[in-house]
């Protein structure tokens, strides 16, 4: 194959390098990755480059309320994406909202990943009753739609960023646990685990240094898909009024606020935050789609 000729023979061909090379072969996936990195950069630097802090009331001019995209403020500033009814620059509001959306979804994803991986590995490694107990809980939970479970939890806890994170973690850990378990069970029967046992390595070492790395590929794909769905879930919950509080508006809440003005034709208040949300989610999903192809051993040449 062409791979053999293009790879420098002396450089070590690690799995990670092979993965990166295959990933880069697809132009759409590369573009999606670039878009996602741009969004991430905008999220990090947003507050320093956007024209105003939308939650500092001193910077808002009520006279500038409800202006369409591209209008000029009294002081000569251009509102590229228009303003909401309180004179808030939508571009600035989106930059701040994106921070909250991404912070919530990444935090909950990492927590869900840690809990799910620990539970799944434990189930696969110990087997028996522990396995049955963990997987029964996972099964019951996965038989209910995520939006329903999240709504119940938030109806009970009330609104708040910490509560949204908790709800997403509770919704998502089960998927990770099931995926890790199923790939770990296959790996566990392989000889290198037996060899690790024979060498007298500790349980923790065998689990985390040998079993876990070899069970990773499906987990990576799942994690990308789950970031996208966490962002979407957070936005949906906030839109329904069960998510983040009004003082810390995420993109979902910005859209909810704009919903009231949609019918009167001031579309930009709801549409632009939605576009930001869509770009982020599509980019992540496209990357995840490519990773699935690259990491799927059945589609390997």
């Amino acid at each position, binding site marked *: 194959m062409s791979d053999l000729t293009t790879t420098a023979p002396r450089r070590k061909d690690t799995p990670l390098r092979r993965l990166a090379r295959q990933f880069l072969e697809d132009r759409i996936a590369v573009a999606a990755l670039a878009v996602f990195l741009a969004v991430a950069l905008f999220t990090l630097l947003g507050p320093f480059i956007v024209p105003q802090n939308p939650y500092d009331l001193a910077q808002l001019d009520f006279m500038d309320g409800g202006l369409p995209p591209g209008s000029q403020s009294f002081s000569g500033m251009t509102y590229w994406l228009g303003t909401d009814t309180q004179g808030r620059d939508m571009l600035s509001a989106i930059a701040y909202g994106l921070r909250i959306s991404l912070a919530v979804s990444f935090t909950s994803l990492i927590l869900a990943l840690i809990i799910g991986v620990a539970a799944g590995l434990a189930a696969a490694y110990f087997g028996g009753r522990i396995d049955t107990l963990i997987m029964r809980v996972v099964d019951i939970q996965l*038989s209910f739609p995520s939006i329903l479970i999240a*709504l119940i939890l938030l109806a009970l806890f009330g609104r708040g960023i910490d509560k949204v994170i908790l709800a997403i973690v509770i919704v998502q850990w089960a998927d990770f646990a099931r995926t890790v378990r199923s790939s770990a069970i296959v790996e566990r029967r392989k000889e290198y685990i037996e060899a690790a046992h024979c060498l007298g390595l500790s349980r923790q070492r065998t689990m985390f240094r040998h079993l876990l790395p070899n069970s990773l590929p499906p987990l990576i794909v799942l994690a990308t898909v789950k970031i996208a769905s966490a962002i979407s879930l957070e936005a*949906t919950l906030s839109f*329904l009024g069960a998510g983040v509080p009004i003082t810390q508006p995420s993109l*979902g809440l910005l859209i909810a606020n704009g919903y009231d003005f949609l019918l009167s034709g001031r579309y930009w208040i709801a549409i632009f935050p939605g576009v930001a949300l869509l770009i982020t989610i599509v980019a992540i999903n496209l990357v995840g789609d490519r990773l699935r192809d690259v990491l799927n051993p059945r589609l390997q040449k």
Partner: protein
Amino acid sequence: MLVYLIRRLGQSLLVVVVMATLVFLGVYAIGNPVDILVAPDAGAAEIARVTERLGLDKPMWQQFLTFAGNALQGDLGDSFVYGRPALEIILERMPATLELTFVALVLSTGLGVSLGLVAGLWPESVAGRTIMAGSILGFSLPSFWQGMLLIMVFSVMLGWLPAGGRGDTVEIFGGLRVSFLTWDGLVHMILPAINLTIFKMSLVIRLARATTREVVPQDYVKFARAKGVSRLRITFVHVLKNMMIPVVTIVGLELGSMIAFAVVTETVFSWPGMGKLLIDSINLLDRPLIVAYLMMTVLIIVTINLVVDVIYTLLDPRVRLAGTSA
């Protein structure tokens, strides 16, 4: 088979009981509905009167026993807001939700399977690639925002379709109100139905494409081709039939999730179903209604899962044999 059925039924019952307990504990242990139901300037006597009327002064375990006993008789308490049995209100709103869900289910399965089949048979073609790109867009679009786009384009800009409500309904089978039989109702249903369809359709497309690609290289398809069976017959008899087994299973299981997702669609389009009722009840802390909705949905989902499982076992000989030998 009978043993399997009984065991499966037992599991479902257990799930219902566990969920009921969790829901009760959660809903009744947190927050105080009295604060919301009495006027802010009400005196202590008024508060005590309301608390007693709602039975909130009794210890938690006693409330739970009362709740469980009543629930078994189909009594989930009176709504704090409406002052009528919560179950009755839920049942009144349920046809609207089920009607919408059913239409969306039919649409997403029909369109999803046909588009997925095309994408699976010709994966490298322009049509195949467009369908797959569209499906990524379809499940990336947050459903509430997609609904708002629909309203903006078709109601605000073009003015073709109504932005919300259910329109005229007619009664069939003595009391069941449906809107798909009147022109006005049908017009009101188009946008919400599309909204609920798009997300699930995208998932069905991806599943149908994946299974088609697995079925096509199978020996029986090659054999049919070698035998000189027409392309059309191979597609519709050999490929479609075998591809439908996993698709039907997943679609069946997704029905529950569509009922839950109707919450979002109903909120965006002010569709008077039980999902919108849930959101209103959460905002008003109307506990009996929240509990009634949750119990009803849990019951529906558990039943669907049970039925799909049993049908799947009956249909697929491989699963059936594995079940009896275990």
